[in-house]
């Protein structure tokens, strides 16, 4: 399994792309949660289909294949949403329109194309979607709280600051999120390095202890032992020869 490296896989935090759905769609937490759920379902379905036909996929045309799959899956999701979930079809138009861009961007940064294990690939896909969804929800929550003065629709302040509802406010909140995310991942990376260093040292320590408890024999001792063994094995054969004579 390829270990997930958040620094290379989070497109929004480290490359600043994928901003359109965040800025234009995530004005409320509920909106962000809905979009995250749709994104996760879309990515899991695409990954399932991709993995089903993986043996015939050429690595050079991997991204176009993903795009074609996403178009099909999106059509399916659009139909399901408009048929069963949301009665007002115009409200899902935005979700589905931004879904393509978000999913394609995430898939451009995936590294699981060489992973042959199905579980690892699915885990990678869910982590990628989860990271993006985390950004969506965090930005949506702050924009709703500061911009509208509400939280999940419940009013907390009389009025909010209109700046945070605007596109510029969305970009500002996203940049703050990126800053916090970068600091957190850098700290986690440092701790992970320190922890793996400690584990390595402990393994070396255990190895030394093992060697101390079972000391290596010197070359002379080994030669002596060999000679003794040879002598013991030769003795019975000589005695039988003498008996025959």
């Amino acid at each position, binding site marked *: 399994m390829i270990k997930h490296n958040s620094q290379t896989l989070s497109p929004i935090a480290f490359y600043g792309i994928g901003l359109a759905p965040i800025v234009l769609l995530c004005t409320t937490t509920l909106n962000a949660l809905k979009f995250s759920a749709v994104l996760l379902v879309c990515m899991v379905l695409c990954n399932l289909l991709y993995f089903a036909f993986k043996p015939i996929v050429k690595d050079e045309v991997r991204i176009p294949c993903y795009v*074609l799959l996403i178009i*099909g899956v999106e059509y399916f999701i659009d139909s399901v949403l408009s048929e069963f979930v949301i009665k007002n079809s*115009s409200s899902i138009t935005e979700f589905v329109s931004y879904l393509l861009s978000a999913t394609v961007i995430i898939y451009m940064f995936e590294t699981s194309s060489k992973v042959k294990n199905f579980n690892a690939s699915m885990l990678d896909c869910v982590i990628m979607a989860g990271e993006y969804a985390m950004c969506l929800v965090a930005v949506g929550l702050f924009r709703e709280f500061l911009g509208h003065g509400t939280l999940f629709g419940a009013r907390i302040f009389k009025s909010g600051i209109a700046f945070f509802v605007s596109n510029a406010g969305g970009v500002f909140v996203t940049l703050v999120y990126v800053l916090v995310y970068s600091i957190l991942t850098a700290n986690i990376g440092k701790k992970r390095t320190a922890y793996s260093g400690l584990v390595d040292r402990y393994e070396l320590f255990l190895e030394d202890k093992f060697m101390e408890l079972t000391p290596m024999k010197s070359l002379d001792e080994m030669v002596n032992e060999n000679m003794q063994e040879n002598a013991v094995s030769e003795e019975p054969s000589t005695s039988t020869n003498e008996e025959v004579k």
Partner: protein
Amino acid sequence: MKFKKVFSAWLCLMFFALLCVSIMLVTNVAFNKDSSSDYFSRYRTFEFRQSDGGER
């Protein structure tokens, strides 16, 4: 050799295009959609602009 590689990549792409169209057709049949109706007219008038919370 290069032609073979390009041809196999093209075949792979065509296969996925076929798969995409198949998914769409199966969805159409499953949900009994009529493409001549104005079901998708909402996409024809769609503009990229800020969401108002999906309460329109």
